[in-house]
């Protein structure tokens, strides 16, 4: 079902609700409204001027403790709205909790200082599909990293590229013999998850790191990302993604702010509080022993990163976040790419939500805090459609005369604004910008409402489509973000 159909269905539902309610309000059939009218009339100095049923009248009816019997569908809408308000309040608290922890709490960077060690063997996987514009920069940077060359193996995975990606990779192989071991895929399932699964079959190292082809790792990054694996409980590690093309336009600047909030505050706060930092699929890696123990990469998932984060958590492995292990990436420069990216993330994340919510709830190894945070993290993309539904319900109930809701509507407005509209999430971004030491870019904070609305619609659209068409396991293809860098 297309998005337009969903909108049309929603409008039909709204019209149906209004008609049903209008029918239900017929004087002979609806006692509770008559009682309201009676009360209103009785309270008027001149009962002939009483308004039969109005917003202030209903308000007075409510405050006057007159029994108010609601039709079942109003009750349903009402309790759904209560539930949504509750959820939004929880997410609001979560945002504030993370931000305050980041600003005033103890910060954990337990593996950051490891600079001398007997470093383990590492394989770097670089999934690539039509990456001629960026793959050379990535390989150049990886060849310069400060890591014992005999312990570092680079595997670019060229999956059915139709541009010069293969040619560029093979040129590197010729120029750097014994350093790069490419995998050119022409068969099998397409997509990043499937590509990783295939490539991992030939891995013999203890650690696997993954970089998307547009990432440019710094010299010390491989050591920084490998250091946490000296902790035998760590199954995966995640570094920080930093946009490179910040100054291009409003979108890139908003994405820079969003990434700051997400990593500098959100991920680091989770790390500080021993919660569930998320492995993000790039600038990170996994321990082969852990990955094998939880069943390896799944190639039937739309978000192999979220998927592996939760399977590791269920298996008793920890994911850690290294805020100082930063790596440049290229963010989308046009809104069309951004919408596609968000929709893809939402679909993958929701798929993980469906798969792992219940197993996490009943898992023996995860702590209570990990369970709470893990479930909230799983639900984070579902909150966009939930918020839309909440807004819709609040408006419908208001016009249906359910003015007992005035308090709830106020709370909904306040909390939704706080949770996703301004204060909480924006507070998080503001705090992140401050922690990063920037001065001027915080002025752009007000523009985030634009990014927020686009994300809200995109995520809702992806989620509704997923719910209505069961698109979970379809089209495992390369969904990649358009590159804006020029090939060398």
């Amino acid at each position, binding site marked *: 079902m297309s998005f337009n159909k969903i909108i049309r269905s929603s409008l039909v539902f709204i019209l149906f609700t209004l008609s049903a309610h209008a029918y239900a309000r017929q004087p002979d059939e609806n006692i509770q409204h008559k009682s309201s009218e009676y009360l209103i009339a009785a309270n008027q100095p001149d009962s002939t001027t009483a308004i039969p049923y109005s917003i202030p009248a209903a308000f007075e009816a409510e405050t006057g403790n007159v029994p108010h019997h609601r039709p079942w569908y109003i009750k349903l809408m009402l309790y759904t709205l209560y539930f949504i308000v509750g959820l939004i309040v929880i997410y609001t608290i979560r945002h504030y909790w993370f931000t305050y922890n980041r600003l005033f709490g103890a910060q*954990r960077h*337990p*593996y*950051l*200082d*490891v*600079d*001398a*060690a*007997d470093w383990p063997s590492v394989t770097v996987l670089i999934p690539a599909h039509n990456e001629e514009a960026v793959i050379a920069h990535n390989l150049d940077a990886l060849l310069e990293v*400060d890591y014992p060359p005999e312990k570092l193996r680079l595997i670019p995975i060229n999956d059915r590229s139709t541009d010069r990606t293969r040619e560029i990779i093979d040129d590197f192989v010729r120029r750097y013999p014994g350093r790069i071991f490419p995998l050119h895929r022409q068969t099998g399932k397409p997509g990043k998850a499937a590509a990783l699964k295939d490539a991992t079959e030939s891995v013999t190292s203890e650690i696997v790191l993954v970089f998307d082809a547009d990432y440019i790792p*710094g*010299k*010390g990054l491989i*050591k920084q990302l490998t*250091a946490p694996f*000296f*902790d*035998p*409980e760590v199954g995966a590690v995640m570094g920080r993604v*930093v*946009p*490179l*093309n*910040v*100054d291009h336009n*409003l979108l890139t*600047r908003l994405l*820079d702010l969003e990434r*700051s909030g997400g990593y500098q505050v959100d991920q680091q706060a989770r790390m500080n509080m021993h919660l569930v930092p998320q492995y993000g699929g790039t600038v990170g890696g996994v321990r082969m*022993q852990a990955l*094998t*123990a939880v069943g390896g990469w799944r190639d039937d998932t739309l978000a192999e990163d979220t998927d592996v984060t939760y399977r590791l958590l269920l*298996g*008793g492995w920890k994911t850690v976040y290294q805020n*100082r292990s*930063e*790596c*440049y990436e290229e963010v989308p420069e046009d809104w069309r790419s951004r919408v596609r990216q968000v929709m893809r993330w939402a679909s993958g994340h929701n798929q993980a939500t469906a798969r792992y919510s219940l197993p996490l709830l009943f898992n023996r*190894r995860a702590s209570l805090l990990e369970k709470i945070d893990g479930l909230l993290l799983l639900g984070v993309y579902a909150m966009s459609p939930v918020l839309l539904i909440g807004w819709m319900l609040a408006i419908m109930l208001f016009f249906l005369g359910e003015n007992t809701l005035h308090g709830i509507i106020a709370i909904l407005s306040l909390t939704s604004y706080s949770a996703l509209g301004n204060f909480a999430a924006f507070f998080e971004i503001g705090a992140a910008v401050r922690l*990063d030491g*920037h*001065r*001027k*870019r915080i*002025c*752009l*904070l*007000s*523009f985030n409402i634009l990014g927020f609305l686009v994300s809200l619609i995109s995520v809702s659209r992806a989620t509704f489509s997923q719910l209505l068409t069961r698109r979970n396991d379809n089209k495992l293809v390369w969904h990649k973000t358009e590159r804006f860098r020029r090939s060398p």
Partner: protein
Amino acid sequence: MSASLAFILLLASTLTLLLLPFLPGLIVLWRKQDATPLRVVRSDDVDPRYFARRFRAYIRTNLESSMHGSRKAGDRQEGLLEGRTPYLLVTGENKLKLSEQEVQEREISRMLVSNADLILPDDLIFSLELFAGRTVRGGERNIYRAILADGDIVIGAESMLLRWMHAAGNVKVGPNSLLHGRVSSDSTVRLESGCRFERLHAPRIEFGKPESFSWPVKRLNPLESHEVQNLADVTGRRWLIDHKSELPSGRIVNADMVFTGEAWIGAGTHIYGSVKGHKDIFLGEGVRIMGSVVSVHDIYVGASCEIHGPVLSEKSVNVGRGAIIGDSRSPTTISAKNIYVSLGAVAHGTVWTRLNGMVNGAASA
């Protein structure tokens, strides 16, 4: 006022109020202010020798020709370097001669550079860097900003270092000295008792005179997973142990171990893997661990223990006498908020504390 004018005024003021928060953002966007990417940390920033390398490059650029020119032993050259940094260059074997003002104030506010040894008296403040082509031999109770030497560095008791110190040869620090910042050597760093430190880096770091004490070698029996108290799960070679657990003495364990409670490892036990603790970890005497030891709380390393991998604690690490961390072929890292090391212990690699590091015990002979 007409109704239409009032409406227009209301509309205009509403729009103004609505758009006002966007104005600073529009200016920043239009002028592309603060639009550079966040600076990514490069590996050099965490290299303990970073400042020493930069200072060496500075010396090479500015004073190399003067140092190796045809100058006689005992010659002095004074002047200003780039950034108007005053310097004093002395050549050949030279006992430092100070100006009257410097003698009176007990403070040298010039960068001291020598192509040979620098021998420094007691009770002085060196507010700029020192460089010696050979050895720096400092007196007692001096305060240094930074020292670089192509030979050894020896500083007397109760001295203070403010930023960094690096020697191509050995570094020897007298008792009760306070070392802020980074101390590194291409050979050996030795700290005497009562020294406090932040970051040390060298192939060999001695805390007092090393004690050679070998734990009696005897036949060790393997420890099987079912013998472990509170074992919750075995995944591959990783054992998960809930709550407090105590491993017996004199056993061999071939696994990585994760303890959610306190972990006690019996004396003489060898672990061919790593140990992680959510609470304190106690290693008995003579314990040998081939992997790393990581704890959210404290780590107590018993006397004569050997640990080959990194020792990482989010609170404190206490290293007993005669313990050896890392080895010369594979240096490693000790990192914690607080690190307390007993005399006779040796570390290879990096010792990195975020708050306080200290050498415990009476001064060694």
